[in-house]
């Protein structure tokens, strides 16, 4: 076996997978930042909640009949969409004119509310997540990549490209950007700010659900707060590193974050520096914000 395998190849590959998970969540975060200049703290929990309803539907728990996997996934995606729309209507829209920080604290409130609601529904016990794919994509002497892991990378890449195209090529995408930059003028042109906002949150909810279902698939279980605990902060870091205004930035940022973390964890043992992954990440984030506040791919403003 190549002696470099553990130190280099493994962190690269596992960082890629882990980072894709962050990137998927980061994509939703970037979308909302791009359109409304807010950080959505409830993004990961939208994912958790959606993954939980998908798992409910998959296993026939509670009000759900025992559905086949594709339908269960659909239930999860619809939950994410619905949550996005609901949050927009009940929390975000009344705060249109409030300071952005207020909205951000409100999304933190939504995060806690979703944790509580998830707890009401399923309790603290982890549920096994919906398993979309079961096989191994790649197994070597030092590395194992599951099909779900590979799927996450592919989905992230596709979504990152698709959403970049969405914003540059479609009318709706342009409208979202226009609203974020020029609400008054956009309204004059006849674009409904409210509709656009609802649309943005709907898409963000959907992205959250996709991320949640895939991420819980790689972890194996889902419980209230699980994805927030695992991935929220790295996803934020990914979004900021990549540049919160650039959609492919989430992809790049996610992968960078995943690899940095993985490298540090693999190569710095716990008794030398505990939590080395997070330390390195913090330093990286700090440096990027100080030196290049717009992020790796973002445009300087």
């Amino acid at each position, binding site marked *: 076996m190549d002696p470099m395998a553990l130190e280099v190849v493994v962190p690269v590959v596992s960082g890629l997978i882990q980072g894709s998970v962050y990137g998927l969540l980061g994509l939703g975060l970037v979308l909302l930042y791009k359109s409304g200049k807010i950080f959505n703290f409830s993004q990961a929990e939208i994912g958790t909640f959606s993954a939980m309803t998908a798992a409910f539907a998959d296993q026939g728990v509670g009000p759900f009949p025992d559905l086949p996997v594709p339908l269960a996934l659909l239930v999860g995606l619809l939950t994410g969409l619905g949550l996005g729309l609901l949050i927009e209507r009940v929390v975000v829209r009344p705060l249109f004119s409030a300071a952005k920080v207020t909205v951000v604290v409100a999304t933190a409130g939504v995060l806690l509310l979703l944790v509580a609601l998830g707890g009401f529904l399923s309790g*603290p016990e982890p549920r096994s997540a919906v398993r979309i794919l079961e096989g191994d994509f790649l197994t070597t*002497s030092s590395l194992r990549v599951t099909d779900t892991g590979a799927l996450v990378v592919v989905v992230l890449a596709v979504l990152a490209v698709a959403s970049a195209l969405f914003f540059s090529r479609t009318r709706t995408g342009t409208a979202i950007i226009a609203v974020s930059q020029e609400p008054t003028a956009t309204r004059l042109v006849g674009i409904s700010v409210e509709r656009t906002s609802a649309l943005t949150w709907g898409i963000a909810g959907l992205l959250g659900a996709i991320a949640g279902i895939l991420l819980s698939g790689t972890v*194996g279980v889902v419980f209230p707060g699980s994805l927030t605990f*695992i991935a929220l902060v790295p996803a934020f870091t990914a979004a900021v590193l990549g540049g919160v205004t650039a959609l492919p930035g989430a992809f790049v940022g996610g992968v960078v974050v995943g690899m940095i973390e993985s490298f540090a964890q693999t190569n710095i043992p716990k008794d030398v520096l505990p939590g080395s992954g997070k330390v390195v990440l913090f330093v990286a984030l700090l440096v990027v914000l100080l030196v290049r506040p717009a992020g790796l791919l973002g445009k300087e403003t």
Partner: protein
Amino acid sequence: MNPSRSRGLAVAVLASAVLTSACGLKPEVKDALAQNPGLAGGAGGGQVAVDTDGDGTVDSFTTDPGAAGGGTTDAGTAGGGTGTTGSGTSGSGSTGSGTSGSGTTGSGTTGGGTGTTGGGTASGPTMPVKGQGNTTGIDFASKTITVVVHGPLTGAGVPQESFRTGGPKYWEQSGPNNGPRLLWGEWKVKVVAVDDKYNAQDALRACNSAAKSAFAIFGGAGTDQIQACAQSQVLRRANVPYVSSGVTESGLGNLPNYFAGSLTYKQQSPLVIRAAKEKGYLNKKWAVVITGTPNFADARDSIAAELVKNGALGRSGKFNPDNDIILTEKAPRDCLTVGNQLRSGGYETVYFLGQPLFFGQCVNQYPTATYTGPGPSFGIQSVADLACRGGAGGFKGFYLHPSPDKATAQAAAKGAPTFTDDIEAGIWGGMQQLEQAFNLIKGPVNRESFISSLAAAGTPGGVLQPSVFGGKTRFGGTGAFLNQITCSGTNGVIKTVATYKK
């Protein structure tokens, strides 16, 4: 095969030795057994490899059927044997090795501001008496004694609801006609389960708050949490009896109010090696994956010493503690890194001690190894379920454990309601231990008499193995069950294949 078989024989011989030494029981224990004939039958013939389903096949996975049958393979003994002193204690001579528990134990009262009525010394009927000693947690009006069980209802990442249900299952449903079980004929016990969130700080907060309302506290699982509660200033000052499963020995040897009712991790290390020898995975490449808490230092050092002594292999060459021990955080987010480390080290056997959710994830990441260890005190069923759901080739291994598989426990706990998992069985067994401890008391029942009488003797066991304190140690565990874990579809299957005595 032959060496293994002879080892099996040795175990059998040891078993009978232990059986006979049961004659050396302390009088109190004998009395307790006499008073509760139903309890003692538990582990009937000493250490038995129980064939629970009775079809004669002990397991499908072991390479050495002879070893499993070391004792008598007889399902009947598990449930039967009413009055006999079935579960022997291994006598005072074998306890206390490596511990420094003596000296501080025994007398029960440890001063403080509370009453001074010495425990077992006073005479009179055995029951709580108002004003005699510290009777906190005893409601004289409704004749109810409150006991608190703490465990990680949340935070460990696997289903742990059984920490809540195990207690009531014992005190409220295991009595005559599936009704409440009464102490001294008329006293009820109320169990309150509190969540320690798998976090020592919250555990200590919960225990300190329970000291006000509970007579005694039982620590279900979680080393850091148990240690935090055991060392509590508040509990010590209020003489709160604190009984737990055996975990670490660090800082717990000299506590007047603390009792470990089962083997500590350190005490189990030689047994882990014994199981590896018997099941044929000792001469393999071993990795030790363990949480980097000082509370696991004794477990870590003892298993490393045993592995080195017994010539186990490591990543390259002989097992080397510097290379082959992987430290983890207390609640890591996922096992990707550790999984890759295990894979690239080519490890064949993994000794794992850590958070249950993390354990399950690591098995998913690296399913090819045989997993072993002292296990999470309780909760191996949840881990197995989680690991088997991963669908990456399943989970196989042997874990030592304070409680046996469900069926064995069921048989030992005659007439009890069905157990949902090992946690429930373990808590049930812990409650049984508490009842046996209550029955050791002579005269007025209070915290002081509880502590002094238990410290002087031990418990005869039942679902759990017997414990012997004998005034010498607070780590009174005498044995553990070797549970074999396999997957059946997406469910983990736990099967007790042997009972090991220290």
